[in-house]
């Protein structure tokens, strides 16, 4: 027969051992377990791919949209508005980077077993925040910090202008759609030292040509690209013949995509503004 007091003591010792073991295992898991970073990423927003490349995560990208030309040799999963769910599932990504909740709604999210990260920045500062977030998610914080620092340095190249020029940015010629307050273009124009005269609280707005003539911007910037393929130059449009603005033609892919390119676009626009100020 084991005395009762001894039995109690042994039980107490066993409980202490279990507690110590549990604590030890937990600590081991916390410090020595393999990282739970993402390994397979599908990018449904082309502006994100250059960011991932800069973060050294090119080999993690397993799928992109068909309009994404930054990444070669990966599966094209369709368009950003209509990705192919079968292809997405076949790739078995652990992370999908989509443009917005409208582009990749909840119903679609339910059908794919992967985490979703929405990348939809409206300003240059937003882009920097998103880069940091992506860096943290991919466990590449240092590289993200470096990239952010580099982009900030790029912005510091922008020089001040003698006067803030007013701008209207044409997204599409027919019907006339211009960049509104919520567009990344407003942030680019602002960073370049200008002021977007269109204060409508939307990304893009269909506005009257009468309004453009009335606002008489210093610069009428029109993009040429997929959304505005080969438009008639504004100076040749009969209804703009009295518009005294300086017409600037720019490449849509360099300006309208909210990625790393947006910082170069701001610098480029600033140079254009500066050049005109010296004329």
């Amino acid at each position: 027969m084991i005395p009762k007091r001894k039995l109690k003591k042994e039980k107490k010792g066993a409980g202490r051992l279990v507690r110590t073991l549990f604590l030890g295992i937990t600590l081991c898991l916390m410090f020595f377990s393999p990282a739970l970073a993402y390994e397979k990423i599908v990018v449904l927003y082309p502006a994100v791919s250059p960011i991932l490349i800069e973060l050294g995560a090119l080999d993690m990208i397993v799928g992109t949209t068909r309009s994404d030309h930054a990444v070669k040799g990966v599966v094209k999963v369709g368009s950003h508005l209509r990705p192919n769910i079968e292809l997405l599932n076949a790739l078995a990504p652990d992370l999908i980077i989509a443009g917005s909740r409208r582009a990749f709604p909840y119903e679609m999210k339910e059908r794919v077993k992967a985490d979703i990260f929405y990348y939809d920045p409206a300003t240059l500062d937003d882009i920097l925040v998103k880069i940091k977030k992506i860096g943290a998610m991919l466990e590449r914080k240092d590289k993200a910090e470096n990239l952010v620092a580099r982009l900030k340095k790029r912005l510091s190249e922008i020089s001040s202008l003698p006067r803030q020029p007013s701008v209207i940015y044409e997204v599409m010629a027919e019907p006339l759609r211009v960049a509104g307050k919520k567009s990344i273009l407003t942030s680019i124009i602002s960073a370049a030292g200008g002021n977007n005269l269109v204060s409508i609280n939307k990304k893009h707005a269909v506005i009257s040509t009468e309004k453009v003539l009335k606002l008489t911007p210093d610069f009428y910037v029109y993009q040429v690209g997929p959304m505005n393929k080969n438009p008639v130059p504004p100076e040749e449009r009969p209804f703009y013949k009295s518009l005294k603005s300086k017409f600037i033609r720019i490449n849509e892919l360099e300006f309208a995509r909210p990625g790393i390119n947006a910082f170069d676009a701001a610098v480029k626009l600033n140079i254009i503004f500066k050049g005109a100020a010296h004329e």
Partner: protein
Amino acid sequence: MRLILLAALLTAFIAAISAGAVKIDLFNMSEIERNIFLDVRLPRVVLAGLVGAALALSGVLFQYVMKNPLADSFTTGVSASSAMGAVIAIMLGLMPYIPLFALAGGLAGLCLVSRIASHRGRIQPITMLLAGIVLSTFASATISFMKFLSDDAVSSIIFWLMGGFQAATASKDMILFAVICLSFLMIRDDYLKLDILCFDDTTASSTGVDVNRLRKKLFFAAALLTAFSVGYAGIIGFVGLIIPHILRLGNFVKASYLLPASLIGGAAFMIATDLIARTILQEGQELPVGVITSSIGGVFFLYLLIKRRKELFYFN
């Protein structure tokens, strides 16, 4: 009644040139305001009027050709094939040539429908209607396919298709005016024949009307009017349907009254709807005019159906 129509047109025109995104004092204009008025507003109001007139006239002509009060540029496939031509131009980045492509598309649609519906040189209205619906469906499917192929340009295609008069210029006004005059002159001497055509083909033929030739002429004129309208303003629905119906309710039954009245009524209606489209939103924003014409058209048809269901019931 004609005076009322003319008064409506005049009122719509004056209201349209007086109001817009920018407030203009017509009797005391600054230089910018004068430019806005002469380069933007006036050509736009005139184009809206001309497109309205062209679409209403084409609607009446299609209804004569098909012997069907529900026929218009949509049911005959001309509208959709013109739009398909325009969308091809947008996709290829040939924006300045949109009207040309729309015209080519419309005429191609016209030839196809006319060819399908002809048998031994005679056009069969029912076959033409069915061929038109098939062509319309095919053109819509092609447009959807092109939208799918060009993801980035999809919004430009959608917005263009909704219709509008933003790109109005004096030269477009003049060309469309010439097309309307030409079409009107083509059919000007056929008023009586059009009235006779409302009876059956045998009766019309026995009175000396060359039914087949007349149908071909009407169809060509209507398709020409539609193709130019779509090329200059996109797809604007219901005008060719509701204007002739309103006018018939107002006792414009004879062709000699109905055709000129359609021109005036269509112009007044379109000028008024464009005025709504460009002034209803704030800060110079615009609504696509097709949205307004289709909404008004839908409500009007519901009204007609509800109002006339009793007599239609007893008629049946």
